[in-house]
């Protein structure tokens, strides 16, 4: 195909190069296929979740209160994670501080100051002996936890992951030896902690990846990620391939969390909705929204039985949803700024929220 090209001058616009036409073709083809896919998915959708759930008993009065308030961060709390011992947590904040707490006694047990601000990701190692964190430094570092008062935790720090943009989330896999990360550079990656080696990278998002969660499956080989491209992708950790993709949200997906059985996952988005996606049906099966809920969801997690879905919102509240019936069970007030992170404890006895109001709260 012939095309005209002239040297760029202020008066004359440069003619389009064929590459743009090819790009337009590809875009159209991609969009056509996506519509077809949605049609196929709809064919087997013979009933809605709330219809199936009509026979289930409704939930009674719901009472949950703040049982602990953890004060100590000097700025916005951005992320938190539970230790497997069901009472300790690690939290990270905008001012670069990472703190390990015994949430039960509210005592601070360790504190590290990162060399960067906006520590957006932190995770507790399964053994309870280390924490991982990162943010604007584009890295994920692992700090072994030492109880020697004289030891400077930062001294034993191990740099594990290197991305080309900020670190948005990190999680240990089944052991202390591997870490999964997601980044503003649009990729996720799996790393060997000991050597810092990149084991697998995951490409497929068109913009920043904001969140991830590992599947609790028997074969333990998949995880889900959510991004600014409004997509939630399910990945095979072995091959690096994206095996399933869902694109029904209207805005950034800030949080993804697997349903306890591993057959589905929930997502929370800036479009103020939470959604449930079933992996076997290969489609979205529920939307949790209300006209009076206007602000985005920053973080979601399920109660132990999967009956309840907790969402932390940017309007400072927590909404509790009946996963089966699709109704909003309760709204919890307390934080004085946006809720940025929310996780249910490993034994389901409570959940913890972190907020831009500098505090963390334990609710039960």
């Amino acid at each position: 195909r012939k095309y005209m090209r002239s040297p760029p001058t202020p008066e004359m616009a440069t003619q389009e190069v064929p590459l743009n036409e090819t790009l337009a073709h590809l875009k159209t083809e991609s969009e056509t296929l996506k519509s077809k896919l949605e049609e196929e998915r709809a064919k087997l959708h013979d009933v809605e979740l709330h219809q199936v759930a009509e026979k289930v008993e409704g939930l009674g009065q719901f009472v949950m209160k703040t049982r602990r308030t953890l004060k100590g961060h000097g700025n916005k709390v951005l992320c938190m994670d539970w230790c497997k011992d069901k009472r300790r947590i690690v939290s990270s904040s905008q001012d670069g501080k990472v703190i390990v707490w015994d949430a039960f006694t509210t005592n601070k047990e360790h504190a590290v100051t990162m060399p960067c601000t906006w520590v957006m990701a932190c995770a507790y190692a399964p053994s309870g002996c280390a924490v991982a964190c990162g943010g604007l430094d584009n890295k994920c570092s692992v700090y072994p936890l030492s109880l020697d008062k004289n030891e400077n935790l930062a001294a034993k720090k191990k740099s594990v992951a290197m991305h080309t943009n900020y670190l948005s989330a990190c999680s240990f896999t089944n052991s202390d030896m591997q870490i999964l990360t997601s980044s503003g550079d649009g990729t996720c990656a799996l790393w060997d902690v000991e050597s810092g080696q990149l084991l697998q990278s995951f490409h497929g998002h068109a913009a920043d990846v904001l969140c991830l969660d590992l599947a609790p499956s028997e074969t333990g080989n998949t995880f889900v990620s959510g991004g600014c491209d409004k997509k939630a992708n399910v990945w095979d950790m072995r091959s690096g391939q994206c095996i399933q993709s869902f694109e029904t949200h209207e805005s950034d997906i800030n949080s993804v969390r697997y349903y306890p059985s591993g057959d589905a996952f929930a997502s929370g988005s800036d479009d103020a909705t939470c959604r449930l996606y079933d992996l076997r049906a290969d489609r979205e099966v529920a939307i949790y929204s209300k006209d009076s809920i206007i602000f985005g969801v920053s973080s979601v997690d399920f109660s132990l039985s999967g009956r309840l879905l907790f969402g932390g919102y940017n309007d400072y509240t927590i909404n509790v949803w009946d996963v089966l019936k699709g109704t909003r069970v309760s709204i919890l007030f307390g934080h004085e700024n946006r809720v940025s992170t929310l996780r249910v404890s490993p034994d389901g006895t409570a959940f913890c929220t972190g907020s831009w109001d500098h505090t963390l709260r334990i609710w039960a």
Partner: protein
Amino acid sequence: MTINTLAKGGCHREQMACFRKMEKVIVAMQDPDMGMKMRNQRLLITVIPHAMTGHDIIAWLTHKYRISEEESLHLGNMLVKYGYIYPLKEPRCLVLRPDESPYRFQTPYFWTSTRWPASELDYAIYLAKKNIRKQGELMEYEKERYSLLHKRINHTWDFVVMQAREQLRASKQRRKADRIVLECQEQAYWLINRPPVRSITLYCIQLYCNSDYYKREIEACRKALGRNRVKSSICLEGFLKYSEQYLNHDPIMQGCLPSNPWISDDTAHWTMNAEIVPVPTRLRVERWSFSFMELLNDAMGRREFMTYLEKEFSAENLYFWQACEDIRHGESSKIVEKVEDIYKNFLAPGAARWVNIDSKTMDKTLEGIKRPHRFVMDDAQMHIYFLMKKDSYPRYLKSDLYKNMLAKAIVPQETKKSVFPFMRRQRHSSPSPAQTATQAAEEEGLAKGAGANSAAGSHF
């Protein structure tokens, strides 16, 4: 929302979604039939039409969305904070008061989403108007910005002043009430878009869609079109079954025995459910029967299952599975060594713990061992896993070993609330897992220690 929206310049896409939703609420509030009843409000000596009280707003929201008053107040406050409703009496205090304070709807012309992003030129004209209208009417922060703008867009300053004068002249020709309304609307708009302290900023993000991206999308779509799907009616039943099965195990739904530590300050529940205990709780043992994964994920469950397999002379299966897990999740540097060990102990002819794998899988695995990698044992591991799941596991659940365990399992007594409700229990600390690991040898001696601190065993 990403950090890029907070650290650099751009527009908050998240904000746009919120604006649209808030506008839906506002439009509903102004619906002629179902919307709010509005009245004239007195502001000093002028009567302002189409105004409402804070109290009215909350009542309407409560009724329309079937929410509590607390939630209506919260929602109403957001509408004021983002400029869709503005207070007539203390315009700089962007708060919804649940009383007779008067409020008005902002005109759509001034909605943040319509006029966004607010331009420097418009702001300059607004400040110029204020300055001309009444010298010294500008606030300190406005004076600063005015002089900054004067420097920055000095080349168009004549235009700014001319526009300001024109707009002032036009407004003088309006009725006083209309003029005041317009001034209020404009003021409210700029209080939101150029607040004294920048609290809302508007940013944007680029999607990286090049040809590689679309090619990948197309490939993924093609694959997805060919996948097998399960009917919704079948999948969704699964959720019902799962939540029902786990209902009693969900402390938030049903409470937990003897009490929830976070509520009662008593850690007995954690002590009784520690990783290894002399006698497990009944709920815990029941859970082992929910799925094979539940059994294996529980250290005690796995130990019991191992005991059972040894009786059946098939313990090598579980040892093999554990060794494979160790490779999958362990250090990269130890893979080669571990694969060799597995071969020696489980796969080699005459191995001490030889596992019975079908010949096809065995051949494939032996071939793969020549170049060991993290996933080289996957096929063999899965084969053995499903063997145990389909055969040994169901028989274990029917065995005396399991039944006895279930029979003697503890059902804790619910802790009654203290006689004096204001008496708070002392919250005891527990040994940190980090400490437990580094002082392993000493801890063994402490196992059954009495005393105020940790109870028997670790608190895992």
